[in-house]
């Protein structure tokens, strides 16, 4: 019976989707490659107690993803808040804790946004990204900067590390993507070996999209008869973006370092909500992000290793509302960030390590707002962590001590009236444990506990007339228990199997929520009024098959169940009340599947995303109900060689069944769309 079930599942899989090469191996190879270069100090295959969900290498390449946000949808436990289109805002909510609890790290250093706390993952192209990894709690490796301990969940984006074939000193890659929404997306990369240990990488990309697409809104009555049906064009979603990136990478036996410069410049329309009598908007946004960062790791002795990171970032944002029927807005914001960090790991006994990290960060926000208070924030983070291994048991505990000092001045009519200083210090712990009961079976049982907070952002605190300087930090407490089992075989039909499952309980206290300040939605402010409890299960599995005729089939499935309830107001517990209601936009059931097949130079990929029924507010009554949606994406790519030039052509059809759906109410998503990619390496 069991065998038949297995067989059935396999047959369905073959029918449903395509097939691929063993991407798992590819990604582990690249990981090992890096480990060889870096920090194979211990005896362990990886330093983390609980491994991450990862997408990398070939698997990432064949996914129909334009930005990091698109790729992250395939992880379990993650909900993407997508306002639609190529240029629309895309943020990630991990395990329903809210997007502000998510830390995003670019080559090991956090991308900050002291202004609104949100990193728009739609702005990060996958063009130069080699791996995307998602950690719940934190990366459970102790040798890291204090900021790595400071978020409730983290996404690590690792850019491509230059690799050279024997005898080669230069790698050049030219890529052109085009498709629906008038997409034009050329990119170029040059990698050069400066010396056996030092290499250089330069990468640049331009993206243009008109962002226009048709959408259809259709409503029926509960008996199925048509209420209304309308088709319109989504406008003002255009995007012009330029990105340039350069890095120098160095590695020797005991040292590894890199230095990077990143620049992003964009102009986009903000398509806005579709509401009665308003079918297009005029708001526009300009972003300029610049950062330069450096990282250096050195193994001083067998017992002591040290690491240093530095970063300077400057971000510019201009928001313009030229619509004369609304409040005219033309605001500009400038943010500066300086960051320095040191981490020091001591191996006390072969299986006992300790780490001390100290980070200092300075943020400043300047704006053209009237009565702006020009806030400055000094953050000092100290993390102490220890890891202990005993037979199959790995344990890790860390404490993060955060000191924040905010300074701002209140101004009236342009003159400084008063200086203010707010001080905050908190200690937050985390514990991670994993246990492998049988050495011959790759089965791990794991658990973690973590308590962390997010600081109110500069906008939450100081935005003129809206911010609330009395906000308290918003706390996230997480409990997680789970297991992972892996099995690999060198022969037979099944080459690898992986199954992991986690159950978790999270609570968010003092959640920061925007509410109007009085009658009429005339002025808003921020208050610490939310309480959320989240109970969830994440299940993830991967299966790799060796089929006859050299066909490799690889499939990944993720399923998430979440009960994320609003506990903010216990009095509001009657019909239509919010108490214990599922919070806005969090589905009970969601899942994703990726199946890819590879045969010689041909790769087929099928990916699927399902988001179950949801409500758009925590009052879970029929008028607030949102239908489930799912999208099917297909891609095929063919690799070829012309002498020294390796080429690859990819064609994609996304949202194959032309599903018309909203992720956020009144923000329609694109229907069926196409993309062509042509890539040359030499």
């Amino acid at each position, binding site marked *: 019976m069991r065998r038949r079930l297995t067989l059935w599942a396999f047959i369905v899989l073959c029918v449903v989707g395509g097939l691929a090469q063993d991407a798992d191996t590819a990604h582990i190879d690249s990981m090992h490659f890096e480990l060889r270069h870096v920090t194979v100090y211990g005896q362990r295959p990886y330093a983390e107690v609980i491994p991450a969900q990862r997408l990398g290498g070939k698997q990432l390449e064949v996914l129909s993803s334009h930005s990091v946000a698109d790729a992250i949808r395939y992880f379990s436990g993650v909900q993407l808040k997508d306002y639609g289109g190529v240029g629309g805002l895309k943020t990630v909510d991990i395990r329903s804790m809210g997007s502000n609890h998510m830390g995003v790290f670019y080559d090991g250093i956090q991308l900050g946004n002291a202004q609104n706390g949100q990193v728009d993952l739609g702005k990060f192209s996958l063009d130069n990204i080699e791996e995307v990894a998602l950690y719940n709690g934190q990366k459970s490796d102790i040798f890291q900067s204090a900021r790595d301990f400071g978020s409730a969940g983290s996404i690590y984006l690792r850019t491509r590390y230059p690799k050279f074939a024997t005898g080669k000193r230069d790698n050049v890659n030219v890529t052109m993507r085009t498709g629906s929404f008038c997409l034009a997306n050329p990119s170029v990369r040059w990698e050069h070996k400066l010396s056996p240990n030092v290499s250089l990488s330069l990468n640049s990309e331009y993206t243009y999209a008109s962002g226009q697409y048709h959408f259809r809104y259709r409503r029926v009555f509960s008996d199925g008869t048509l209420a209304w049906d309308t088709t319109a064009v989504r406008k003002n979603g255009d995007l012009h973006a330029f990105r340039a990136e350069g890095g120098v990478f160095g590695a020797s036996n005991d040292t590894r370092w890199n230095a990077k410069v990143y620049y992003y410049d964009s102009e986009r329309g903000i398509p806005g909500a579709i509401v009665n009598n308003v079918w297009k908007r005029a708001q526009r946004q300009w972003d300029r992000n610049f950062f330069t960062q450096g990282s250096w790791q050195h193994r001083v002795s067998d017992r002591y290793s040290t690491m240093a990171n530095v970063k300077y970032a400057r971000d510019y944002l201009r928001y313009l509302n030229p619509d004369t029927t609304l409040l005219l807005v033309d605001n500009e914001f400038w943010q500066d960030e300086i960051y320095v960090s040191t981490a020091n790991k001591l191996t006390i006994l072969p299986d006992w390590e300790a780490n001390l990290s100290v980070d200092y960060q300075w943020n400043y926000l300047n704006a053209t707002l009237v009565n702006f208070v020009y806030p400055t924030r000094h953050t000092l983070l100290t993390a102490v962590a220890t890891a202990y291994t005993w037979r199959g048991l790995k344990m890790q505990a860390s404490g993060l001590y955060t000191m924040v000092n905010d300074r701002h001045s209140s101004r009236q009519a342009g003159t400084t009236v008063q200086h203010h200083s707010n001080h905050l210090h908190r200690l937050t712990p985390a514990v991670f444990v994993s246990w492998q009961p049988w050495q011959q079976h790759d089965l791990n049982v794991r658990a973690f506990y973590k308590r962390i907070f997010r600081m109110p952002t500069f906008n939450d605190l100081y935005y003129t007339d809206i911010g609330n300087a*009395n906000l308290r930090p918003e706390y996230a407490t997480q409990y997680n228990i789970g297991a992972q089992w892996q099995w690999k075989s060198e022969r037979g039909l099944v080459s690898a199997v992986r199954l992991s499952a986690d159950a978790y309980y999270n609570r968010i206290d003092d959640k920061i929520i925007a509410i109007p300040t009085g009658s009429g939605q005339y002025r808003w402010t921020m208050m610490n009024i939310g309480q959320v409890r989240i109970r969830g299960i994440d299940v993830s599995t991967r299966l790799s098959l060796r089929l006859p005729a050299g066909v490799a089939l690889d499939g990944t499935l993720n399923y998430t169940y979440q009960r994320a309830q609003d506990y903010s107001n216990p009095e509001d517990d009657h019909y239509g009340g919010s108490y214990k209601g599922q919070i806005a936009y969090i589905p009970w059931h969601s899942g994703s599947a990726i199946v890819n097949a590879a045969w010689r130079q041909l790769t087929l990929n099928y990916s699927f995303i399902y988001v179950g029924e949801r409500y758009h507010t925590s*009052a879970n009554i029929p008028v607030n109900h949102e239908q489930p949606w799912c999208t099917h994406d297909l891609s095929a790519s063919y690799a070829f060689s012309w002498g020294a030039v390796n080429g690859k052509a990819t064609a994609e059809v996304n949202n194959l069944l032309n599903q018309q759906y909203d992720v956020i109410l009144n923000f329609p998503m694109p229907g069926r769309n196409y993309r062509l990619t042509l890539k040359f390496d030499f």
Partner: protein
Amino acid sequence: MNPKSQEPAAKRLIARLRLAHCCVWCMVLLLLAGCRNDEPLYIPDAVPVTMPEYTSVKGFYLLNEANMNSNKASIDFYNYETGKYYNYIYRAQNYGVVMELGDVGNDIGIYGSKLWAVINCSNKVEVMDKNTVVRLGQVDIPNCRYIKFHEGYAYVTSYAGPVATVFDGTQSQIGYVAKVDTATLQVVDRCLVGYQPDELEIVGNRIFVANSGGYNPNNYENTVSVIDISTFKEVERIPIAINLQYVKADRRGVLWISSRGDYYTAGSNIYAYDTRKQRVVAKLDCPVGNMWLDGDSLYVISSEFSKVSDTYRTATYQIINTREMRVVNEHFITDGTEQAIVQPYGIAVNPITKDIMVTDAKNYVTPGRLYCFGPDGRRKWDLLTGDIPAHFVFLGENVNEQ
């Protein structure tokens, strides 16, 4: 434990894991099948509330604002003669109206045979039959705010006039009052007033418009604009206080005008301006969020936010006697129900029975609640409304004359 005894256990476990693995694959593949259906428009059943009541007041409409961008403005109707409450009556009565009522309802009124709803973020005034709520048409007025009627015309305030430079250098739109022919639903004239005009009131042959200047917190407006109806020109600006919102005229020609204050040092307040004596005759020192005038009683609710402390002050429920020009009742809710109200938002008083309706906007994103109190301040009933229940109008004979 010896490793050999562990071995069968491990094998059993691995076998189960294999099975579990297959189950997960099947489960997600099943999800593929049951995907999206058409979004149904849900129409709630009528809610039986209380015993029918037969007076000249047949019922009332309640306009729910709903949160910006949600497009969920809705109209509820309470029928006194059946004792039943109808949520989403606009939806139920207007099959096939694309995108329904619109985004952010801001005012509602009845004139002649028509029901008028000002839908702020949909830039229109929706015109319906007052008995059936069937849509008759719309009047496009960008960023429209409040409405009043006079001799065959509707007067609607709008924030969206021509752009001008305020004296501190910032750009802002001058507000205006649109004159709408209630028969043809056409805008026939416009009259510029102050910045961001809110409620308006008509006394005799003059329109009084409360200017807020709310888009420019550094430079709030502090005047009421006076428009002569016959020429439809602004003739005067009367200084009252900053950031004005409501204006209601009592039967002696005294305007009761509310100021939102600046949320910092200046709190909200109510001023009485006598149109005959042409001067401010009283300042009430009474915080105000919303108010309703019934005869000589001005019912005032407030839940004021202070930017100084960044907290809400305790909500108040007061009655001002407009003849005596003072607060005569500091707690018109007498049975402790105010403890359950999170954000008092809208208010209305039945002109015959003097029952008091108070709405609770709660967290502004979930459905609100409507409380009905008897004249003695004791709760009679309460029920679920749409999101942000806010603006009332009574249906019946002679109920809109004040």
